[in-house]
């Protein structure tokens, strides 16, 4: 609980502003991915308001795009529900790691903050974890600003996306991988854990071959991280 106990932590307002500013590193890519989703949404026939509501409520690019792959009339709710759950299951693990960041803050604030938890804010919080921010403010600041931009980018893509051309040619489908590639460096510098990394990598590759849908992320990350527990149990 070292993070919660950090003495003289920064105020909520100052942390909110820090989060809202630092998130701009990720913003160009978020805007482009949001626009790509907007284009895809207009292609399957979503109206402008439907696309905006989709981005506002789900707020997860990978899950939104994967859901559109199975879009039909009527919408196959079971398929899109399971696809979203599978892709966003990584947030269950990310949320678990947020306990030590947020446990000392009031529950309504924490559960509001968690709505805005995304890969980018989680990666930044993990990178900056040794600083003394009010983490509810930091995560809310970055997550809220990005949420607004995400909705705006979706709407822009829906209306003007044809101008973008093929996003794959610009490598924009590689955004999530690029995010996590940069995160790998800061995570690795913080704790050099070879076993969880290798196990997660191998299990995810195997699971992707054997199990349909994007469950391989959760399976690989869960089994990989559990090796961290085994290592600790031996040490203790």
């Amino acid at each position, binding site marked *: 609980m070292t993070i919660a106990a950090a003495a003289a932590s920064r105020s909520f307002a100052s942390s909110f502003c820090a989060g809202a500013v630092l998130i701009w590193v990720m913003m160009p890519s978020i805007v482009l991915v949001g626009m790509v989703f907007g284009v895809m949404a207009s292609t399957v026939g979503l109206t402008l308001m439907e696309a905006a509501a989709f981005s506002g409520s789900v707020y997860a690019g990978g899950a939104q795009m994967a859901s559109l792959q199975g879009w039909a009339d009527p919408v196959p709710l079971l398929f899109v529900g399971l696809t979203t759950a599978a892709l966003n299951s990584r947030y269950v693990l990310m949320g678990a790691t947020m306990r030590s960041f947020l446990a000392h803050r009031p529950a309504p604030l924490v559960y509001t903050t968690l709505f805005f938890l995304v890969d980018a804010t989680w990666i930044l919080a993990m990178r900056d974890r040794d600083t003394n921010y009010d983490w509810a403010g930091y995560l809310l600041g970055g997550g809220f600003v990005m949420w607004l931009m995400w909705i705006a980018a979706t709407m822009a893509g829906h209306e003007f996306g044809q101008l973008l051309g093929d996003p794959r040619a610009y490598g924009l489908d590689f955004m999530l991988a690029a995010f996590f590639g940069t995160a790998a460096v800061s995570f690795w510098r913080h704790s050099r854990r070879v076993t969880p990394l290798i*196990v997660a990598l191998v299990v995810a590759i195997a699971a992707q071959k054997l199990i349909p849908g994007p469950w391989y992320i959760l399976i690989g990350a869960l089994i990989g991280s559990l090796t961290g527990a085994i290592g600790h149990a031996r040490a203790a």
Partner: protein
Amino acid sequence: MLARPDILAAVVLLGCVSYACRAGGYFLMRYVSLTPPVQGWLQAIPISIVGAILGPIAWNGGPPEWAGLAAAIGLTWLTGWDFVGIVGAIAAVALMRGLAV
């Protein structure tokens, strides 16, 4: 507006599923005491998520994706700036795909 009820249902359902994922892990940790093995597990989560996402991308990808991952990791490592890593990775992927065509 939201003309079709099935689309409205999908927007609400997927929003709830996503929030359940975001809040669920945090909520459940309330009932888990932070013993050394649990702390070891939590500390291993970030690098494991990285492995589980990047492993299959590298496995299924070709030279453009490998170059992209190398650029993301290498440039962030050298400059210490995430933004350079992301831009470099996207540029590397786009360039390699452009050359291949």
